[in-house]
Every structure is written in C-alpha cells, then in structure tokens.
C-alpha cells in the first residue's frame, strides 16, 4: 500500500472555476484586470521549470503559463497507476494563493468555488483521491463556515493552510478555524506556499531573497513559525483532538527547532501556560511530517541520525509533491529509510492520520 500525502492539482486559469463560483464572483473573475482576475504570485521564476517536464503538454501550454493544470487522466497515468498509489491527498497549486489575497471576502468565495471544482472534477471521479479544503486564514469565520459546509464529506480529509500568512496559525484569531476542524475531526495540513507573497509576511527577517533558489531553500521558515506558534499557543490543549501535518518543510530543521523550543519552554512556560507540557510531547501525539523533500546530505549515512529524533516510525508520511520539479519517487524515498520504518512511512501513518478506510480488495 502507498499513500501519497502531497499531490498537487490545479486549474489552467481561474476562468476554469467559473462554473463553480457564485455570480458576483464569476463577474469579478471574468472582468477584473485586462483579461480576467489574477492571483498574487511569486516574484521569482524557477530557472529550469516549476514542473516535471513529462507532466504537462509542452506543445500546447501557453507561453508564460506557470502552473499548467493536472487533469485527472494525467494524474492517473503518471502517478496513481504508475506507482500503484492507494490514496493520493490532493493539494492545491495556485489556489493556495487565495489565503494570501488581501480581499478576504473574495478569497472566501474563490475557496468555495475551488472546493466545489475539486470535489466534482477529481474527488467524486476517483476513489483513490482525497482532498484538502482550501480556506481563508485571513478570514477565520469564513474558513470555519467553509469547513462546516463541506468538511463532513468523506472526500475531504483535512484543511489546507499555506506557509505564507499574515498571522501565525496558533494565534487565537484563528480559533474559529481550529474549532470547526475539531468539531468535524479534520486535521490541518500546513504546506509551504506563497511565503512573502500577497499579504503574507516576509520569507525571513533577513530581507527579500533575490533568487528562487534562495526562496526554495528558506521557504520552510514560514512553516516553522506556524509550528512553533501552534505549540506555544496550546492549540492541542484547547482542541485536544486536533491533528496537524507539516508538508514540504523538510525534517532536519524541525528536529533542531524542537530541541530549542523544549529548552526555551523550561524557562518561559509561565508566558504560555496553555502549553502545559514540553512542546515536543504534543508533537508525538498530534503532529505528522511529510517526507518530500527528504534531505540529501552528501554522505547519506548522516540522514537517519539527523531525523530519528522526530520518531519517524510514528510521525513520517510519504509524499511525492507530484508534479513539481523536486518530485520524490516512492521506491527511491523509502529505500533510504530503514526497512522497519517503511510500512509506517509508506501508508500506515497517513492512513491513521487521515482516517482513511482500508481499501477493499478488488
């Protein structure tokens, strides 16, 4: 069995969502700007291409198009069938930018349209696919409303939040979102996306990176901010059933963060009384991590000692990041881990985290 926890899907342009939007939003999508509404996006361009070149039609993709869509047939051919994937967790591409759009009301309506589109085009069509709801952290009440609108559907197994944000996700301003997730038993996936874009804070406090390669090396920084915020604000105490998965933030940095946070908690816990235990203790119970991009030290023997403190046999879930350029092929990824971890990482941890049903043999 194989569960791929990070498979990106997207539309070609926002116009593709028109049939799934309410009329006023459709009007804005069609008539804003010069030729329709655009989303805030990265100021860096990947110098050699955002996507695996065999995952889109090079000939028909419009000049300047950045993230060609992934229709279901292509995902079946290139991923689900090719690797015998049991379940794929579908994550957004450009739609992640709704969360960093200044106009929060518009963003909420776009989220609803995208979630409707995802449900009809992918999730209702492909039993191996499960979705994450795209919502508006910049408008937590609207996010909660969207979670309650669709979160009861079996096709949706969680809520997606990008690393780029205006306020760290542990802050009490996000409580409506956490409360709705707790009510529905849905986990939250925090995935690096759109740091330094739209209303999101800067990638780091060092100032704006000049190059894509700098951004992509640093992009986990936003996730680390959310990770620490969620732990320090006691989200897992206030909403005890909450589960969080950190996607595409790497693994090694989280180990160092946890060591440092546990040490700081000992001196500073009077400031954060809702965090009653050493923060790492909440992580083992409530937080999971995805493999991709699994760090690649020059001497691969250095990898396991650097990550074993994260208890990967309990916390690590395989992810490919298909169709992005840094795709991690499943067999190659799993081969780098001890045999005793592989069942857990390839599927068991994710099955449990997302509460996926055991597939019935054909």
């Amino acid at each position, binding site marked *: 069995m194989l569960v791929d926890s990070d498979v990106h899907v997207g539309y070609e342009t926002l116009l593709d969502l028109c049939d799934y939007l309410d009329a006023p939003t459709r009007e804005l999508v069609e008539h804003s700007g010069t030729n329709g509404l655009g989303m805030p996006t990265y100021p860096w361009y990947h110098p050699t291409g955002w996507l695996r070149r065999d995952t889109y039609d090079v000939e028909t993709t419009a000049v300047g198009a950045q993230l060609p869509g992934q229709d279901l047939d292509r995902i079946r051919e290139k991923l689900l069938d090719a690797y015998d994937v049991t379940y794929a967790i579908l994550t957004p591409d450009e739609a992640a930018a709704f969360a960093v759009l200044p106009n929060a009301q518009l963003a909420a309506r776009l989220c609803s349209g995208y979630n409707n589109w995802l449900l009809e085009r992918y999730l209702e069509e492909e039993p191996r696919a499960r979705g994450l709801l795209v919502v508006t952290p910049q408008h937590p009440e609207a996010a909660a409303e969207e979670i309650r609108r669709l979160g009861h559907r079996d096709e949706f197994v969680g809520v997606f939040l990008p690393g780029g944000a205006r306020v760290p996700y542990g802050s009490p301003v996000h409580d409506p979102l956490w409360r709705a997730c707790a009510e529905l038993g849905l986990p939250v996936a925090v995935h690096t996306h759109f740091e330094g874009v739209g209303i999101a804070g800067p990638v780091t406090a060092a100032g704006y990176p000049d190059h894509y390669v700098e951004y992509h090396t640093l992009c986990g920084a936003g996730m680390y901010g959310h990770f620490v915020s969620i732990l320090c604000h006691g989200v897992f*105490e206030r909403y005890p059933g909450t589960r969080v998965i950190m996607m595409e933030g790497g693994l090694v940095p989280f180990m160092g963060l946890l060591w440092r946070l546990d040490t700081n908690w000992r*001196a500073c816990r009077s400031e954060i009384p809702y965090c*009653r235990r050493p923060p790492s203790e909440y992580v083992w119970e409530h937080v999971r991590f995805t493999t991709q991009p699994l760090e690649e030290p020059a001497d691969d023997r250095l990898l396991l000692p650097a990550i074993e403190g994260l208890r990967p046999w309990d916390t690590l879930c395989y992810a490919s990041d298909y169709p992005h350029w840094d795709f991690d092929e499943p067999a190659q990824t799993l081969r780098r881990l001890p045999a005793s971890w592989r069942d857990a990482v390839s599927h068991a941890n994710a099955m449990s985290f997302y509460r996926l049903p055991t597939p019935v043999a054909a």
Partner: protein
Amino acid sequence: MTASRPREARIPLAQAPPPGAVRIVEVGMRRVAVFCVDGRFHALADRCPHRGAPLCSRGQVVTGIEVRDGELATGPANALVRCPWHKWDFEIATGRCAVDARLRVRRYAVEVDDDQLVVSLSTPR
C-alpha cells in the same frame, strides 16, 4: 582528633523566613535554604541539579501560572523557586523540577523546636 562537623543549625523562629522569602543557613559545610510555603517550612540544597547554579540564594521564590477550567489562574502562592541561571522552576515542598521530571533538588529536614527552627542534614520525613 578533629571535631565532627555539625549536623544541624538552629535559628530563632522570629528570624525564620516569611512566605516568599528565603533564609540561607550553613549546616556543616553545606548551604541550606529555608522557605515557608503555606505555613510549613521546607529546606533545600542551594544547588541547582541542572547546572549547579546557586538555586536558592540567588534564585526567586515565585507563584506558578496555570490553566484551570480553561482560564488562567495562579497556583499555590510562593510555592516555587526559580533558578537564577536558566529559570527552571522547582517545587519547594518536594524539590521536584517542574520542567524535567528527572531532576530533584536535595531536601533537608526542618522542624520547629519551641522558639527555634532546627535545620538538619538528615532526610526529611
């Protein structure tokens, strides 16, 4: 022949530390800190088991902050001593480290004898 080191020290009860304060006494070669928590006296070694700091003589007696029934609240008054170096808290009554269950400050016996407080190097009952 050398005289054996004293195993106890006595201080007038009138000079015993009030709640929130500490009184350091020398017993033999050891520095022992006396505290009063909720009307009871306790004695701890003046040495932090984490990194050896002068825990009690240079630390602070504090009241913990906790969450009770979902609301912020204060814990038992003046029940903790906070290390001056890394700010780890220890329960005065038990010596237990509040942030690392593996650590405990050494405790000593202390009792009231008429108008005197008797601090001894024996293990508290």
